[in-house]
């Protein structure tokens, strides 16, 4: 198997796949993208890595039927509450319809291979799947 690279740098693949947020050292607010200072408190004291729970509850979702070219539809996009940290992700490994995807459902992190580049490196994506 070739090397793997996560789709985004806040997806850690080892020891088991999980998300890592940048947590403000002053107020504890969490962000997934690189920040210059904290949007919550304005502090520039810096950020520390914080592991985000891999299980959560689906707080909002939509089933997207019209998307940018190249994105397979329909797919489920949602907001998952992972122990108090909100996470944006697709809901995967289930039928994309309102019978299978419901508000409040328990979900857990899951990964999949998005594609392979010319160097043989696999890009790993993530989503949340039903935990039941």
């Amino acid at each position, binding site marked *: 198997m070739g090397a793997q690279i*996560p*789709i985004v740098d806040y997806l850690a693949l080892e020891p088991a796949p999980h998300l890592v947020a940048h947590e403000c050292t002053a107020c504890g607010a969490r962000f997934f993208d690189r920040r210059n200072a904290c949007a919550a408190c304005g502090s520039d004291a810096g950020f520390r890595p914080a592991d985000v729970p891999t299980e959560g509850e689906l707080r909002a979702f939509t089933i*997207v039927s*019209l998307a940018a070219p190249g994105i*397979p539809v329909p*797919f489920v996009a949602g907001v998952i509450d992972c122990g108090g940290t909100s996470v944006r*992700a697709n809901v995967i490994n289930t039928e994309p319809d309102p019978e299978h995807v419901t508000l409040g459902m328990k979900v857990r992190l899951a990964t999949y291979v998005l594609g392979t580049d010319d160097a043989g490196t696999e890009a790993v*994506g993530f989503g949340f799947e039903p935990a039941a």
Partner: protein
Amino acid sequence: MADDIWILGIHMTKFGKHTDRDTMDLAAEAALGAMKDGGVTIQDMGILAAGNLMGASAPTGQMLQKQIGQTGIPVYNVSNACATGATALRTAIMAVKSGECDMGLAVGVEKLAGAGLLAGGARKSDDNTFTPSGRYGSVAPVDGRIGTETMPGVFAQIGMEYGHKYGGTSFELFARISEKNHAHSTLNPLAAYQKRFTLEEIMNDIMIAYPNTRPMCSANCDGAAAAVVVSDAKLKTLSLEQQRRAVKVSASVLTSDPYTESCQILPDVNTLTRRAATTAYEQAGIGPSDLDLVELHDCFATAELVHYDNLMLCEEGGAVPFFESGATWRDGSTPVNVSGGLESKGHPIAATGIANIWEVCHHLRGEAGDRQIEGAKVGLAHVIGLGSACGVHILEKSAV
């Protein structure tokens, strides 16, 4: 009061597809119409604030001056997402309120017919090795793979989140909101669409982002709107007829989104709207129950529901029973979007934040024809632009 600001004249173009008219044709019609409506000319204007979101890097205001009069006054070209029109109006209001001038013109214009899906899919990988880039260190476009950035999908989740928090929502409930707005627009000759849809037609139409089908999404279209604002002192020097038709700006508020935990994940359109509304009610010295009509930012049916709550038209958490009571239909206790709203009247982005003011003014002046809300004295206009910006204006009928 001495520092009151008034809408002296206001105009909106027909919303829809204007194949033979360019952006300046539409902006000029709105601007000239607003000044004519107010009985004034470009020579009376002390400031021009202009917005055109799709042409945000262009000198829209100066381009407009070439069509309506280059008088050398300061021009402020503004861009604030879907709140661009409200921001232009508020810029003119601030200039007059500050005493820099006694009359100002605000214009919003957009050519958007046939624009299709807005936002989403911004970045495309351009070589064949995965290289992390950007603030997420991503190796592939994230839109569609890590949630959705498309507007219908974002606002769908906003409505669903409300349903999760308070219960009572369903696909059908959201579709019923759209049914109302499309029914309302049948009385509005300037609306892009004037077709009434049955609930079944709405639910069976093309699904864009569940639970929003196509008629539950704002209609991309062309249009412009403009308003002339005037100081209280200047208004008193004008004719009685101008004073009678002037509409008082009882509150003019603009907010941005304060940090909330999940706002980085799903835009929080609630907190800044609630803050803007709270400030506006305080400024105007009135409460939500005093409102005779409301034009709010129903960019999607799912958005209208949450704004009932955010604007405090109902008790907190009570938007579903509030809608189900019939309160927001034109014969209800708080008519909402009697123009047809963004879903049916249309949403030429930068024009929207002045067009909704036009709608309210029309009713307060008793000039709304077939769709007149009888005896309307106070109205509220709300817009929201993702990013985010929220504009709330409260307007009152002249006592003259």
